[in-house]
């Protein structure tokens, strides 16, 4: 096992009823890296992300995080669960003001001083001027930036992102990618990014993992992944061919 890993994954599987949707023998997520998870729809990327956020328990095997194993029948301690957060594809903002949405996660932790962190988080995503507006009235790009600010205000050790820029315009895609990069470099936040966009993976990631039908086909440094993939299926996927 690597000493630098944020997560160790071993013999991990997830099944819904009798259908296995994820089966990974061994995988690690390094501390402070941006790891992109790529693969066709239904390959298990989002399922893996939910497991990494401890939202669902594995059916078999385990994920080790901060020295604690997360496995079937076990809940992750709240203080560890709170070091990890997810930005989903759909922002799922609360029917409150932008400000209240951003401070919500601090209030969950009983933190009273929310003024400074909220202002910083909103400035980071360029939405300080919309603080008092109802979050439900924002555009898709603005809403996703609020979701990002709501996650960033926590200064999480691990930021999980499930297609955060899907269906957004190029301006918002660029802005969100810049923020992800900045947060990762300045705070050494580990980022696991699910994306369908291989170009985005290439722009952002340190390493890329390719999932296919719930199995991990290949994980490699970004240059190796795109320039000299070890597996023919990875090569086909990178070249935009149909992969089954």
């Amino acid at each position, binding site marked *: 096992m690597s000493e630098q890993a944020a997560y160790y994954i071993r013999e991990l599987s997830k099944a819904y009823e009798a259908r296995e949707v994820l089966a990974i023998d061994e995988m690690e997520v390094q501390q402070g890296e941006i790891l992109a998870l790529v693969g066709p729809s239904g390959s298990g990327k989002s399922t893996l992300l*939910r497991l990494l956020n401890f*939202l669902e328990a594995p059916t078999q095997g385990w994920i080790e995080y901060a020295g604690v194993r997360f496995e079937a029948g076990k809940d992750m301690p*709240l203080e560890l*669960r709170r070091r990890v*957060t997810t930005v989903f594809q759909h922002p799922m903002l*609360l*029917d409150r003001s932008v400000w209240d949405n951003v401070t*919500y*996660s601090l209030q969950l932790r009983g933190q009273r001083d929310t003024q400074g962190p909220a202002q910083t988080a909103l400035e980071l995503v360029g939405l300080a001027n919309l603080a008092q507006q109802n979050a439900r009235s924002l555009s898709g790009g603005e809403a996703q930036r609020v979701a990002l600010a709501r996650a960033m205000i*926590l200064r999480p050790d691990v930021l999980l992102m499930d297609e955060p820029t899907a269906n957004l315009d190029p301006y918002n895609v660029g802005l969100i990618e810049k923020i992800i990069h900045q947060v990762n470099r300045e705070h050494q936040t580990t980022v696991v990014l699910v994306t369908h966009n291989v170009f985005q993976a290439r722009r952002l990631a340190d390493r890329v993992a390719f999932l296919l039908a719930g199995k991990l086909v290949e994980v490699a440094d970004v240059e190796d992944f795109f320039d000299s993939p070890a597996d023919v299926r990875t090569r086909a996927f990178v070249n935009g061919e149909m992969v089954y």
Partner: protein
Amino acid sequence: MSSDLVEIILLTFKVSGTALLLSTLIGVPLGAVMGLKRFIGRRWVVVLLYTGMGFPPVVVGLFVYLLLSRAGPLGELNWPFIPELFTPGAMIVAQTIIAFPLVAGFTMAAVMGVDPQLQQQVISLGATQRQAATTVLWEARIGVIVAIVAGFGSIISEVGAVMLVGGNIEGRTRVMTTAIVLETRKGNFDLALTLGVLLLGITFLVNLAMLRLQGRSMNE
């Protein structure tokens, strides 16, 4: 306004207000649990809840009457916190049983109307299960207000159950609906009509207040 009339109105508020409070305290958490949790036997609980929503109040009155009568399973216990028949306490029990399934059922529907992904999102942000449930309930607040309004509507206008378990005793258990029945039977149509208009006015004002609250939630 005569002191008798004031007494009747105050008792109506006391009985229906307390029953609504109890129905809300029971119904809202129950509806939230039913809307958020999946467990074995949930479907049967939902069927029971829906049955309770359509339960004829007079049958509830009969059921409470049999339970609280001296020979009934609760009446013979003689425990101090179990109300006796023909007291406001018995009327509150009956009205609570009438209203809480409505409050719970409509709350459940409101909670189920909130996108399930929202619960996952707030847990991902570090919410405990209780914090997540409270957040979802707050998101469903307009529906929860409707649930409480429905509960209030079912008991403020109810006559069969309170007549059975309260007995319409002057100065003790006479409320506006039972007084209307009595005064109509006695031929005192003026008084019955006055009570009717007052009851309508009170119902209108309470619903108006709820609507304003709902409107504020929708506009905030």
